[in-house]
């Protein structure tokens, strides 16, 4: 399938926005301006963008502790994201959630989740609800390959398949469960697990946004038509550490491996494709990047200058 040029440029813009956002998050950490830690999505941008661009605004997603990319790809704004990361009042969750719990109802984002695999039930429940309300919405559950170790995932995949729920499970296999290679924790052939439950299962190169998008589009529309859930395995790589503080990584993964994967940077691959097809030249791409840098800078400024929530808010929102 040939993707239209505007669409590829839009992917480039979205992926670059996530990359620049995450680089800025790292800077905020290194300059001690951000409380706590953050888990960067750098290297995996093609998955969030390729999948979310296949969704309607009112379709649901659930995300993970490594979730900034999913939120942005589903339509969150940079300034309110930064505000949440700094615990500020205009943040998406009024500073109560932080990096690992960003939720945005307006864009169908039911929340990032800091329990590995913890949102599998929520996403499947949202799909069930969409079916019951006959809303034709689809739910996408993003998770890393670490979640393959969680029993909940298998419980809900079983029900999704039994009841043909409109859900797409997206497994971002970035090779590492925190600091341990997934081959040391994951027996057998991963794809055979969802296949055993009767899910349509596809394994693809997660660095190729075109492949991610065309596959996601097919699986999402299939689910929307009531043909049942699907499982998309995207091979990818976490360019940075498990979190921003994970800097010395040699004890669990070789530098050479990192270098090899960086040659398959999803943004550079897409840029190459755009140039080869003469859809954009170096200058045009640099122009997009400059524009996004200004957006990121303005977002950080906004967040740094934003007020903290009123301390009295600590007792608010415990109960609806």
């Amino acid at each position, binding site marked *: 399938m040939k993707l239209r040029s505007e669409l590829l440029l839009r992917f480039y813009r979205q992926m670059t926005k996530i990359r620049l956002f995450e680089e800025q998050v790292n800077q905020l950490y290194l300059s001690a301006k951000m*409380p*706590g830690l953050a888990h960067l999505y750098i290297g995996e941008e093609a998955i969030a963008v390729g999948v979310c661009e296949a969704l309607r605004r009112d379709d*649901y997603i*659930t995300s993970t502790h490594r979730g900034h990319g999913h939120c942005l790809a589903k339509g969150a704004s940079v300034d309110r994201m930064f505000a*949440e990361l700094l*615990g*500020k009042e205009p*943040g*998406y*969750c*009024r*500073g*109560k*959630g*932080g*990096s690992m*719990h960003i*939720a*945005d*109802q307006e864009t169908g984002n*039911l*929340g990032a*989740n800091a*329990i590995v695999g*913890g*949102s*599998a*039930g*929520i*996403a*499947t*429940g*949202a*799909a*069930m*609800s*969409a079916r*019951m*309300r006959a809303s034709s919405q689809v*739910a996408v559950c993003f998770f890393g390959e670490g979640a393959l170790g969680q*029993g*909940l995932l298998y*419980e*809900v995949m*079983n*029900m999704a398949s*039994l009841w043909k729920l409109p859900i797409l499970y997206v497994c971002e296999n970035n090779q590492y469960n925190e600091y341990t290679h997934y081959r040391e924790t994951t027996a057998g052939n991963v794809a055979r697990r969802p296949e055993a439950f009767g899910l349509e299962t596809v394994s693809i190169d997660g660095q190729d946004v075109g492949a991610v998008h065309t596959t996601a589009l097919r699986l999402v529309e299939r689910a929307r038509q009531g043909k049942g859930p699907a499982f998309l395995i995207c091979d990818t790589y976490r360019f940075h550490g498990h979190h921003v503080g994970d800097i010395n990584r040699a004890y669990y993964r070789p530098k050479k491996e990192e270098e090899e994967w960086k040659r398959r940077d999803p943004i550079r691959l897409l840029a190459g494709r755009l140039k080869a097809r003469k859809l954009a030249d170096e200058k045009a791409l640099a122009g997009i990047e400059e524009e996004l840098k200004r957006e990121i800078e303005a977002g950080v400024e906004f967040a740094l200058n934003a007020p*903290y*929530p009123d*301390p009295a*808010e*600590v*007792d*608010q*929102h*415990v*109960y*609806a």
Partner: protein
Amino acid sequence: MKAPAPTTPHATGASREMTFAEAIREALAEEMRRDPTVFIIGEDVAEAGTPFKVLSGLVEEFGTGRVIDSPISEAGIAGLGVGAAMTGMRPVVDIMFGDFVTLIMDQIVNQAAKIHYMSGGKLKVPMVLRTTLGATRRSAAQHSQSLHAWLSHVPGLKVVLPSNPYDAKGLLKSAIRDDNPVVFFEDKMMYQLKGPVPAGDYTIPLGVAEIRRAGKDITLVATSSMVQVALSAADMLDKGGIGAEVIDVRTTAPLDKATIIESAKKTSRAVVLDEGYEGYSVIAEGAFYYLDAPVKRMGARSVPVPFSPVLEDQTVPTPESVVEAAKKLCGKL
């Protein structure tokens, strides 16, 4: 001494004798008729109507689309309930035995209870989780526990403990209409207990205790199964000349502290009666007469831990706050 007038308004519908199980079923049926977003999911809830036959007949009226038999996957159905509740439905998740809440702890404690708070008040989880408590059914260690105290400990959850058919119907209706996750514990030994239940709609607010019997000498504070025990004990005490006041707590979260405190002030003595394990109150029970001031408990603030430093720093005791509390107890503040 007769029970005082109830603190919550009585229903107007004609009253019938009904079992506790029938009252639960009637509440569910009425709510499902009233609100199309209410549905039931659980193991053997449809044709089987649960092993206790509490739900018999519901699938015939509402169909398998709203009374859904699930696999034996407690965590999975609890998770589905959370997701469905967040997106416009009002699920009633059936967890057959209270002992199985161990299997759903992440979904109820880390997800359902915290989502409203973590999202800064944007997302809601209007879900009811019905389950059971109570021993003496000869079901042994894994089918007899009363674990409501665990869940009452979690900010963001409401915990309901009805003690009779009338309350079961009115409290369940309130639980279903509540916008928060509510865990509804039913004493499985009480399912065949009969009592008056009004026809038609009425609700009992969550967080209002009921004085079941007035007395001046001692307060018996009881939950769920222990309310009947307290009432029987009060009868026996009465014959010996001791007037016991019985408070049915009805919900442990929120807890109607005012009613309990008022009663204790009046009677000046109290027994707390609950089928869960009791393990604390060490000083209050062991050294009360040596105290010059009430024990002050300090712990985490009753909120999920917020991210923002200006909020988080208020949630744990500090040396300064301990000093302040201690000085107050010593009369030096």
